[in-house]
């Protein structure tokens, strides 16, 4: 494996390949962690673009740098090289129009479920109005947590906590959602429901979504485009446009096109696995 071949790989997508003006441009981003005794090379060189309204799913082996990439896109950590552009502006720090779901459910243990959901409002508007409260309650109902709003996070099951995080992020009202395995702790049925809700919200509110997931089916079901990352140090080794029509329905999952796409992603991933 030589570095020039890697460089070739990251040239995709070409800077001018966008349909319109891309909402998000990741340009030659690389990152190593040097705090420890041995530096860890997390991301090699990653470039990608996301169009407004697009849903892009990121698949890749554990430890390949997906979370790191998302953090860089969100402006939470600085890349060693390369740059990120959001809405035509370089991203130096978190942008108010980006919403984040982290891989670990980070609820504040001293806030009730409702107050946790209301946190973004409190931060952005400085205070919480009755209307926000109502909206939060609606979102909690949406994620199936009606009647749990006065519990503390410790009293929730793993999947319930994850859904609170989802409600919190949706209340945020961001244009770009960066989601790191948002449904990982949910059972198949709840997960499907959440997927459908996400698609509905995406359709209604024209959100753009960049999401890490480990479920190939979920990726194909949600995404306009699926990106596959290599093993550490991560780079994007494949992309697959998903041409299933929208709005998508659960039935489609039984369809032939869906199966073909899933298989294709599987093959990409398998190849990656066999590469090293």
């Amino acid at each position, binding site marked *: 494996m030589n570095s020039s071949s890697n460089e070739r790989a990251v040239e995709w997508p070409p800077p001018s390949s966008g349909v319109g003006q891309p909402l998000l441009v990741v340009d030659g981003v690389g990152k190593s962690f040097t705090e420890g005794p041995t530096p860890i090379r997390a991301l090699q060189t990653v470039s990608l673009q996301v169009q407004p309204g697009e849903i892009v799913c990121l698949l890749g082996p554990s430890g390949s740098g997906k979370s790191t990439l998302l953090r860089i896109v969100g402006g939470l950590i600085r890349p060693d090289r390369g740059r990120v552009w959001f809405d035509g502006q370089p991203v130096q720090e*978190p942008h108010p129009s980006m919403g*984040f779901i*982290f891989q*670990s459910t*980070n609820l*504040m243990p001293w*806030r009730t479920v409702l107050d946790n959901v209301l946190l973004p409002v409190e*931060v952005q508007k400085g205070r919480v109005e009755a209307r926000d409260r109502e909206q939060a309650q609606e979102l909690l109902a949406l994620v199936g947590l009606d009647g749990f709003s006065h*519990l503390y996070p410790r009293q929730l099951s793993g999947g319930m906590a994850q859904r609170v995080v989802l409600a919190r992020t949706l209340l945020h009202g961001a244009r770009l959602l960066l989601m790191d395995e948002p449904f990982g702790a949910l059972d198949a049925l709840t997960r499907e429901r959440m997927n459908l809700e996400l698609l509905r919200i995406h359709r209604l509110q024209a959100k753009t979504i960049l999401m890490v997931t480990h479920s190939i089916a979920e990726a194909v079901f949600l995404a306009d485009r699926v990106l596959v990352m290599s093993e550490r140090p991560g780079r994007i080794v494949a992309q697959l446009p998903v041409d299933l029509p929208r709005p998508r329905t659960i039935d489609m999952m039984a369809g032939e096109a869906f199966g073909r796409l899933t298989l294709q992603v599987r093959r990409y991933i398998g190849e990656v696995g066999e590469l090293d």
Partner: protein
Amino acid sequence: MTFEAKVKTQTDRPRGEGTSAPGHSAGWLLQHLEYLLVPVVLGLGLFVWDRLVVWQGYPPFILPAPAVVFRKFLLTLQDGTLVRHGLVTLLEVLLGLALGLSLAFVLGYWLGKHRGAERLLSPYIVASQSVPIVAIAPLLVIWFGSGLLSKVLVCGLITFFPTLVSTMVGIRNVDRDLYDLMRSLRASRWQIFRLLELPAALPIIFGGLKLSVILAVVGAVVGEFSGADVGLGFLINLARGVLDTPLMFVAVIALILLAQLLYLGVSLLESYCLRWQRAA
């Protein structure tokens, strides 16, 4: 013996339920024992004190009997002595706390965020804490007079450190994931402080506060010892001077009660602020 048989025999005495129930009632007992024990222990203490005086034959100038002290207590309460001196000491304590704690929070927060700053400043802070107050009392008197101010300063100085350290430790203990969350929401520094750092550090800060309020009382007494004409510390000195050991004990008890009151206040505030810890 087969497994089935075992199930059978053990089912007959409902042990699972049995062991669960005592756990509950033991907890209940302990909780109520506590309220029961407070007067019991207190009474026991008074009894031992009384017996000590009788058996050891201590003259009153060494250790007056509890009854004598109690009578004196009522007396000084009635004639307003206790209230007058107590209020002054309370004022010194409160002003000292206001001064010491506000400084401690600000500086502790800053040092918590910057380890370099801590290494830089800690020698001076340590120095300020280890200079015996009595040794710098002349300087304090020369610079700030022998009135309220010098006592407030002593109080402030002595309350400052525990809250500083606990604020520092508390801020460093904040979950990093939650920092990321707040940053991703573009929370301002003030919001990060108010919505994340303060509530997260609070359990630890309260530990420091508990120390500070008690040291505040000690500080006021030390300040009053080195020159004053009113206050409970002064009353102790005065009582020594007029050979009134019971009065001295009354002043000491008043100081203890003051400390208890402050401690109780902090404890109540703590259990209100940290009520989320008790849920679940």
